[in-house]
């Protein structure tokens, strides 16, 4: 199938999902409330609980909250696809002469738009409780783009889960259950030094840690030089997206509704 069709088909699907956003106001409401609650909860509850040398804890963990919320994009994607599969829509799409990747790519693009909205709301909520970009506009925008790309990568993991599990409920659990361990086993909410030694060796290379480091450098000019963690994060994002999107499309080609 030619490239123009691949783009046109994906655009049709993206429009479908963007329409959903306006048709299900309660979903939109909760997807706006959830990040606000996260920001307020973490900053109010933990603000004075942990001391980070040389840095206000609120600022220290703010990038980690962003990263964690973006990682939850996985569950949204997997639930949505499982639902499409369950309702027979995937069968319908698969019987049409459309590009094989469009159903997944179109969804991921629409979700990237939604994640961008979520992120901007979080930043606004962050500003209300004292969070500030301290390293210039350009690197702040760079950090925001990195977060959106990170959410896109995690959404692509969601495609494999959503098309692989047997029910919408399972898709929800399977898309979510590993996010908390992944995001907490990092230097997001505590310093690397406070983790057990053996765990540090693993956590050091986790995409969440490289994202936290990159964002702290980009938002505050804190810690390591920005290049290394940013490049590591980009490598993770590209790698995850390629692998899982290819797996997802392969699964889509043989998906069976029930």
């Amino acid at each position, binding site marked *: 199938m030619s490239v123009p069709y691949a783009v046109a*088909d994906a655009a049709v699907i993206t429009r*479908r999902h963007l329409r959903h956003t306006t*048709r299900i106001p309660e979903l939109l409401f909760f997807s706006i409330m959830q990040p606000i609650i996260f920001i307020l909860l973490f900053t109010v509850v933990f603000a004075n609980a942990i001391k980070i040398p040389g840095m206000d804890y609120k600022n220290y963990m703010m990038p980690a909250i962003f990263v964690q919320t973006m990682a939850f994009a996985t569950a949204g994607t997997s639930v949505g696809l499982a639902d499409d599969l369950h*309702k027979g829509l995937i*069968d*319908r799409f698969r019987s*049409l*002469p459309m590009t094989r990747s*469009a159903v997944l790519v179109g969804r991921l693009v629409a979700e990237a738009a939604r994640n961008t909205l979520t992120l901007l709301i979080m930043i606004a909520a962050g500003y209300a409780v004292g969070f500030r970009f301290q390293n210039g506009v350009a690197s702040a925008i760079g950090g925001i783009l990195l977060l959106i790309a990170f959410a896109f990568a995690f959404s692509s993991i969601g495609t494999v889960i959503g098309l692989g599990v047997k029910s919408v409920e399972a898709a929800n659990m399977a898309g979510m259950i590993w996010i908390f361990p992944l995001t907490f086993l990092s230097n997001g909410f505590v310093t690397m030094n406070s983790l057990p030694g053996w765990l540090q060796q693993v956590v050091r290379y986790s995409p969440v840690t490289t994202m936290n480091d990159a964002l702290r450098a980009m938002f505050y000019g804190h810690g390591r030089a920005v290049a290394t963690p940013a490049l590591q994060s980009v490598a993770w994002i590209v790698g995850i997206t390629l692998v899982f999107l290819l797996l997802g499309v392969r699964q889509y080609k043989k998906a069976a509704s029930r």
Partner: protein
Amino acid sequence: MSDIIVAEGLAKHYGKVTALDGVDLRVPAGTVLGLLGPNGAGKTTTVRILTTLLRPDAGHASVAGHDVGREPGAVRKIIGLSGQYAAVDEHLTGRENLEMVGRLYHLGAKPARERAGELLERFALSDAADRVTKTYSGGMRRRLDLAASLVARPQVIFLDEPTTGLDPRSRLGMWDVIRELVREGSTLLLTTQYLEEADALADDIAIIDRGKVIANGTADELKAQVGGERVELTVADRSELAKAAGALRRVAAAEPVVDEDSHLVTVQVTGGTRALVEVVRELDTAGVEAQDLALRRPTLDEVFLSLTGHAADEE
């Protein structure tokens, strides 16, 4: 007449379960094949293979000369599929659903919009066109789903249990729509577990049971295969049933079947109206008063029962 749908030796296994065990089908252009069988017989699996959704373990199939395994893209361009569950996006309006499908068939924006309008009109959905389909009744959703399968004016239409779960009125409405498609010359493969539906809509019927086609032909041919006519006798009182069955046994070609609840005795006879005269004479002799008496040809239910040894609605 050339065959538009050809399937040969289709087999599909899921682990140890055999879903299809060598299915052969031929559907001539412009005709309707009714694939008739109980739940789990392999109807949906057959449709999924023919519509490129599933690859068979063995055998091959083609639609309008295109092999479903080797040229799935070419097949998808000329088929329309309406599945067992109304596959419409419940958060989009009816119009948006049809337009989306039109765009994905690459009709272009304007033709897709016009086609959506035509189909909504035709399926009596114009009034509901701009409501999200979540608010539609089951029958409306099915009509929209069928409309979606017709967007690109497909040569070949697959309808997988188009009336399952519909109330009787919606079912008759759906039958009208399907008959109209047939009049327009579409080739149709329709699956159903309802014998009267296959009888009413299909030119040819293939009876499928446990992954195999066990009989095929026109409804008349299948009925002839079971042989003879049936005499149906209703008596006023249940206590008369045994006496009636006894009387009928003397003219019967097979053992009478007694339905206690509806006070009905059915018996297979040969010789048509002459047999009916004998039945009346025997009933008179035995002193049985018939409330209702009729001579009729066998139903597809009886065909199914005699071919498979079990009724169509039993697993």
